[in-house]
């Protein structure tokens, strides 16, 4: 732009005057436009500012304080003490372990099942809408209700407990048994989320053009080759999304383990912390013990974990995309 203007003054003045003219035109208009824009944005800016943006900063501040809700005036600055104490707190470490375990089990299984179900649904199947709806139902059902129902089904003598004795499991209340409680949570989470990821994969599959498959067929590729050489690479963006959302959702799991573990008035995370997740830990610290500085630090550690994992996943997929 600049070099053109320097070498040819004629063009410059001409374009300049045109630019000014249009700028003046916009000035009259734009004051009104800007006013309208901010009028339309106002409720969102106000409410999100007060109840989302400000609380994030507020939470960060109290994570550096010894802040008890029971005695807020006695709040003191303690630097990184809360963070240091958390990372030495065996209960929190245990909660991290449980959450990472959940992640390692739930995410690969649900991703695989979702992909298989979507692939089957994408072939010429009757009643596709029916199956899709059925898979999606658990996802829109209240996690609190799901937790309560599962507790009864996996109770001693419960219908699912009886069924599972066929596979050598004991007839015990799963939610209260140290060996089974964790896997009950795994099952509930997968059962709840599978439909959502199936629908995501289905849409990914449907966006792949039939022409590509036709071409592969003509070239003599078999079904397995087609899946690994064509379908899987083209589904990479969907897989990224499914993994990304799966990881974030699993890291934030709260309601299902909370309901299941507190059945009959037991402590959250029982039996013996085997179902304690990070978010349950923060919730209990904040609203049972009112130790809010400490709990806020836990919230930020969770946030940092989610953020880091997101970046790592993004970076990994970007790299593979390029190579």
């Amino acid at each position, binding site marked *: 732009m600049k070099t053109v203007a320097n070498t040819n003054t004629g063009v410059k003045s001409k374009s300049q005057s045109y630019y000014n003219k249009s700028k003046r035109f916009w000035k009259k208009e734009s004051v009104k436009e800007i006013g309208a824009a901010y009028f339309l944005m106002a409720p969102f800016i106000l409410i999100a500012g007060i109840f989302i943006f400000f609380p994030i900063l507020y939470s960060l501040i109290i994570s550096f304080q010894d802040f008890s809700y029971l005695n807020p005036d006695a709040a003191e600055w303690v630097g990184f003490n809360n963070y240091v104490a958390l990372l030495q707190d065996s209960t929190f470490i245990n909660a991290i372990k449980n959450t990472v375990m959940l992640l390692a089990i739930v995410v690969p299984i649900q991703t695989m099942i979702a992909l298989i179900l979507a692939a089957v649904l994408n072939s010429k199947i009757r009643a596709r809408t029916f199956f899709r*709806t059925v898979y999606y139902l658990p996802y829109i059902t209240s996690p609190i209700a799901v937790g309560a129902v599962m507790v009864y089904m996996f109770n001693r003598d419960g219908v699912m407990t009886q069924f599972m004795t066929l596979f050598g499991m004991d007839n015990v209340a799963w939610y209260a048994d140290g060996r089974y409680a964790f896997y009950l949570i795994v099952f509930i989470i997968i059962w709840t989320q599978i439909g959502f990821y199936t629908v995501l994969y289905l849409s990914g599959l449907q966006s792949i053009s039939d022409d590509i498959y036709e071409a592969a067929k003509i070239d003599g590729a078999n079904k397995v080759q087609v899946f690994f050489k064509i379908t899987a690479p083209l589904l990479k963006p969907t897989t990224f999304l499914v993994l990304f959302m799966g990881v974030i959702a699993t890291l934030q799991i709260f309601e299902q383990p909370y309901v299941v573990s507190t059945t009959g008035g037991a402590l959250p995370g029982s039996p013996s912390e085997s179902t304690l997740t990070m978010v349950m830990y923060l919730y209990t610290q904040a609203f049972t013990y009112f130790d809010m500085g400490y709990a*806020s630090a836990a919230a930020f550690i969770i946030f940092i974990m989610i953020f880091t994992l997101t970046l790592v996943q993004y970076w990994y997929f970007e790299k593979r995309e390029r190579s």
Partner: protein
Amino acid sequence: MKRPVFYMLLILTSLVMLLPFVWTLYASLVKNDMLVNHFPTSISEYGFENFMYIITQSHIATWYKNSLFVTITITVGNLLFNSMAGYSLARIKFPGSKILFFVTLGIMMVPIQILLIPIFIMMATAGWINTYLALIIPFLVNPFGVFLMRQFFVTFPKELEESAKVDGLNRISIFFRIALPLAKPALIAQAIFIFVWNWNSFPFPSILATEPEMYTLPVGIYQITNTAYTSSITASMAGVVLMTIPTIVFFMIFQKYFISSSIGSGIKG
């Protein structure tokens, strides 16, 4: 050869998905708590007593009213405010629009658990605990909803706006009279998302409503199933059935929009 295997797989997985729903409905109709795991064959063992019991013996009617009022108000607020913001971000060039858009995307990534503690302290300081204000006002907007509406309005035909401008309408009238009525599919999709999320919401209501009269359904159902656990399984299941009906009805009516929008927004997000 392959077809039957596919159908077997689909039917089996569907059974796993449906079983808890069927079992809940069954359990809610069994009169005697002790018989729930024994599948009584006599028709006289079934009835609607559990529903009568839960309606008369708990605050469930009040919780229903609270949940409906809170969720509907939040949904209406979101439809209006998110659409206004989304339209503004999509169609108007104004200073700060880029920053506002990136901040909106940024706060979508923040886990809500970070907000629990500060919102509780703010509400307690304002004296709003156990009021509708606390249950409604913080949730009247949603960055995801703004994003959804922005994506919709970005593809909105320019010609409609220009002819409206020629007719002498200003921006705000263009939004309310032309853009908003034409955004029906996006609005329905958003309405269902916001409705389902807030109807099922548990962590926030559980800390913002501590008196039984102010509970929403998830908080109330949690109290019934977890504190009164030993008293009645079948009555709890009746409560769960009552609670689950609205989301399923909502979903069945609008499922076309629901699933297609989760696809669109998901892929773009």
